[in-house]
């Protein structure tokens, strides 16, 4: 087990290092470097050279990378935007909570509806509910979230203006003085982000429903379930007390991995609803050819993604006794 853990950690460190180097290298290649962004049109060649020295662009790539990594690890400094001079770490500090809120919110919606659909259709495979929910799941998986967003906007923001088209006002305040203010802040965020969260949750909930359905059907065919039926236990009790938990291992894993994937998925949803999160930050930086914020944002997203996948992998090994024991005996 310890060896397995060590191997996993080494793998993690390797991937993180390569990812950080690639991020650095990729964005170093971005056409129009910081100097162009800072200068705009008016710069003498001398000023350009000065700026190049200021950003360390005159040095070889490995040295630049070393410095970048050192700044990052020691000072948590990711540089500053070439457009408006705002430190990247400061912007990320504002935007990361918004994206995380959105991700968790949509995950809760997806799991809730997915569980409902999954258990309902597993109760009677190929029954009416199962067939309807499988059609819903099939559609939900085929529809990209940016298309679904349009349907949702048309329905709930234009035809019936219950919600707003944009969620620019989202503002995550953790340090509000009293509980009442915190609650009202939380409530308004829930309200503003409901449509974006639903769009993000759509594909996930279909996946969860299908996954849980298939695993539940497999579990319900196990001998011990037949035994429970023979004993005369009510169907409800068999489903929730006996079959549900053993059927949720793959659901738990996929849900965990999806946390990382959702962070990437927010890019487009944030662009549609004008939410001030990481995704919009990435898109804006690309459009402004502002490579330093882009570097920081890509690094943070990729790191979060790798770390989440790593944690899920480990958790899975601990959660499922079959795997845990297989590893222990191996």
């Amino acid at each position, binding site marked *: 087990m310890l060896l397995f853990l060590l191997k996993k950690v080494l793998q993690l460190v390797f991937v993180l290092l390569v990812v950080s180097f690639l991020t650095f290298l990729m964005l170093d290649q971005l056409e129009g470097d910081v100097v162009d962004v800072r200068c705009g049109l008016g710069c003498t060649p001398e000023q350009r050279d000065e700026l190049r020295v200021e950003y360390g662009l005159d040095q070889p790539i490995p040295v630049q990378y070393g410095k970048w990594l050192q700044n990052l690890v020691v000072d948590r400094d990711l540089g500053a935007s070439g457009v408006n001079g705002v430190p990247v770490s400061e912007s990320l500090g504002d935007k990361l909570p918004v994206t995380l809120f959105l991700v968790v919110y949509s995950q809760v919606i997806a799991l809730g509806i997915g569980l409902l659909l999954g258990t309902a259709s597993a109760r009677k495979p190929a029954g009416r509910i199962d067939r309807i929910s499988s059609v819903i799941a099939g559609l939900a998986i085929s529809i990209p979230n*940016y298309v679904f967003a*349009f349907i949702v906007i048309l329905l709930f923001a*234009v035809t019936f203006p219950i919600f707003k088209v944009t969620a620019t006002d989202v503002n995550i305040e953790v340090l509000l003085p009293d509980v009442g203010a915190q609650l009202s802040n939380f409530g308004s965020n829930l309200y503003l982000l409901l449509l974006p969260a639903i769009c993000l949750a759509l594909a996930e909930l279909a996946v969860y429903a299908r996954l849980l359905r*298939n695993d539940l059907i497999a579990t319900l065919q196990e001998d011990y379930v037949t035994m429970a039926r023979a004993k005369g236990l009510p169907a409800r009790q068999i489903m929730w007390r006996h079959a549900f938990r053993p059927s949720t291992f*793959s659901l738990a894993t996929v849900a965990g991995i*999806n946390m990382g994937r959702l962070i990437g*998925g927010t890019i487009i949803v944030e662009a549609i609803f004008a939410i001030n999160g990481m995704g919009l930050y990435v*898109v804006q930086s690309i459009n402004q050819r502002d490579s330093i914020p882009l570097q920081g944002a*890509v690094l943070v997203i*990729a790191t979060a993604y790798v770390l989440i996948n790593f944690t899920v992998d480990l958790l899975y090994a601990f959660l499922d006794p079959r795997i845990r024991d297989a590893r222990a005996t191996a």
Partner: protein
Amino acid sequence: MPPPDETFSGAPEPSPLGDRDALMGVNNLAAEVGMIEDDHARIIGSELAAEGDPESAVALAKRRLGVVFWIATGIIGVLALLAVFADVLPLANPNEQPRGANARLEQSLPPFSYRVDGSLTVLGTDSLGRDQLSRVIYGSRVALGVGFAAVLIGTLIGGAIGLTSGYFRRGYDTVTMAGMDVLLAFPALLLALVIVAIRGKGPVNSTIALTVVAIPTIARLVRANTMAFSQREFVLASRTLGASHLRVITKELLPNVFLALLPFIPLAIAVAIAAEGALAYLGQSVEPPQASLGGMISQGQPQLEQGKWWVPGVPIVVLLAVLISLNLIGDRLREFFTIKDSAL
């Protein structure tokens, strides 16, 4: 979780879901691929079990592809033909805006309405008064072209990587899979965005970006299948008879692995097309004024908010028709090649 398949027993499996994290096509759409991979394991496992089964009515029904499959294929086929022959079809110029005093009257027209000069616009006009029908066809050209090309090249490269690393294993496998892991460390849409940002906009660069995104998923899928087939007797027999590695890979493994991969290909194309749409929505696909489905959708957003839903509605309907058709084709192929449904 069904118990691990017996044919997999020889192949080390980090976790039954280890390859699930490989399955992260650009849109969340690709999550479905995870289930497909499970099914592949089942296909392989159930092949032997199905032998000798009397052909039931269900099995017979499965031997036909069915009406839905052919309708879906027809939709894709017609759109592909329209896209290929867009230049010779009698279409309005997709980038031409009406000029003069009446230009404003011709903006955001609903389908089947007439321009000021009396000409019919079958699918209406966009917010700049451009013909939606021809824009949608030229946009589909980009979407279908990029989607098919990216998956084709991705399958060639990813397939080669997967076949060789699944067959040879050892150090080569470790190195290639580490490379794939690094590619998978970036959320797919982010990776595609960054590649386009570096290389510049345009259909060729979108294709390159989406190919890079597709390679690791396909490579891991092919590798998993290759490992399973490598354990089978016919591969051992071929080796014993003195076949070279190249011969075993091309004559024994490739046909089997390809068949297992086939249902996945339409789904991968759907993922790539949705991703191209996402890039275009974010303004990172083709340069305006060139039409792309995602670009038309994004330009139609203000119209949607004014209640003129048909402006973004036209490209959305076309995109959905393509994606749903491809998904149906993939699902049907999967059922078609699954001899026995072990989930039920």
